[in-house]
């Protein structure tokens, strides 16, 4: 593919999913700066591999690249330093409303990554099982069972938090 045409097509089909890419990266890294780094790297990667993109679901394709970029990044970072959560996430909780908000966010962030990502894709990105399966390279059955476990664990976590806050 000729370069200018490639760039134009890429900007047209893949760039519009920037928010989805950032949202997933932000939930995966739990950190704004890392999310930006990963999304930028993911976009460059996606551009490099764009010739291999068969058309179709640009969002799922991009999110798969974001996720893979994250996994690579995490392997690289794992032993270097523990990345701190953004501080806003851990404000004090007093009101039930605030407790609910904080708890939900905290609990979602505390979920193991396998559960966190499917919940984010399903509930925030409103993606289908099929799309999530494509992004995670897992069978639909695995997506369903992960999603189900994720929901239960999130529920347990939130319930416990609220109980604690209202004591």
């Amino acid at each position, binding site marked *: 593919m000729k*370069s200018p045409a490639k760039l134009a097509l890429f900007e047209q089909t893949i760039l519009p999913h920037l*928010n989805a890419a950032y949202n997933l990266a932000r939930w995966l890294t739990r950190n704004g700066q890392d999310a930006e780094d990963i999304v930028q790297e993911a976009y460059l990667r996606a551009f490099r591999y764009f010739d291999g993109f068969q058309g179709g679901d640009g969002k799922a394709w991009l999110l798969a690249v974001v996720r893979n970029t994250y996994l690579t990044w995490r392997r690289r970072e794992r032993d270097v330093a523990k990345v701190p959560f953004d501080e806003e996430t851990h404000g004090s909780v007093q009101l039930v409303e605030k407790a609910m908000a904080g708890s939900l*966010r905290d609990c979602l962030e505390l979920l193991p990554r396998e559960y966190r990502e499917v919940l984010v894709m399903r*509930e*925030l990105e409103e993606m289908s*099982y099929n799309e999530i399966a494509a992004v995670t390279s897992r069978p639909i059955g695995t997506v*369903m069972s992960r*999603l189900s476990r994720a929901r239960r664990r999130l529920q347990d976590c939130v319930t416990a938090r609220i109980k604690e806050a209202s004591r």
Partner: protein
Amino acid sequence: MNCESAKPLIESYLDEELDAIQAGHVQEHLADCPSCAQTHAQFLEQRTDIRAYAPYYKAPAHFSDVIRGALRQADRGTAETWRWIAIAASILLAVSFAWNIARFQSRDSSAALTAQDVLSSHIRSLIGTHLLDVPSSDRHTVKPWFNGKLDFSPDVKDFASQGFPLIGGRIDYVDGRAVAALVYQRRQHVINLFTWPEAAPGDAEMARNGYHTVHWNSAGMTYYAVSDLGIGELRQFASLYKQ
């Protein structure tokens, strides 16, 4: 539909992943079964909570431009890379052309220099007193004489019966190396046959300033026969030697 079969489908129903018929069955069951309806309600509430309280992190305002810039740079980089590869390739091509031309030229010129050197040696041998180191018409005298003086042993032949008598030999210098010069006579003309171990490139014949040179390679040796003889007679000598 009973609870047993409905329960595993509640989440798929929630996620709108059931076909219309299955979805209809689950919906009917939820209307009849308070337990399943509660489970469904809890999931629904969780969804509402997630969407209400778990932020959808939108990309920062400037970020789209950052990505765009990075992409353009990468795109330029790719183009640039290809351009550099193209430039490098053409440079390589030009260099290899120049190299080959230079090589041919230097081969040519070195061959020409050798021929020139041979001719100079021939002329020097005639105007000085140094035509013969070993004056002898006997090849069994001439050939051993070279032993220990050269790192090779020239093939000495006599063609007295064909009118090209051997009159001796000497050591000469061509291209900065010691070579054997066998000297033959044809009437009043002298023939210098220079030989040394090499397959030297160069023209088979050369005419310059009234002198002729016949050049050939044979069995790892190179030969230059030089004389003021006509080219026909020099060729005759050469072919005698080659036999």
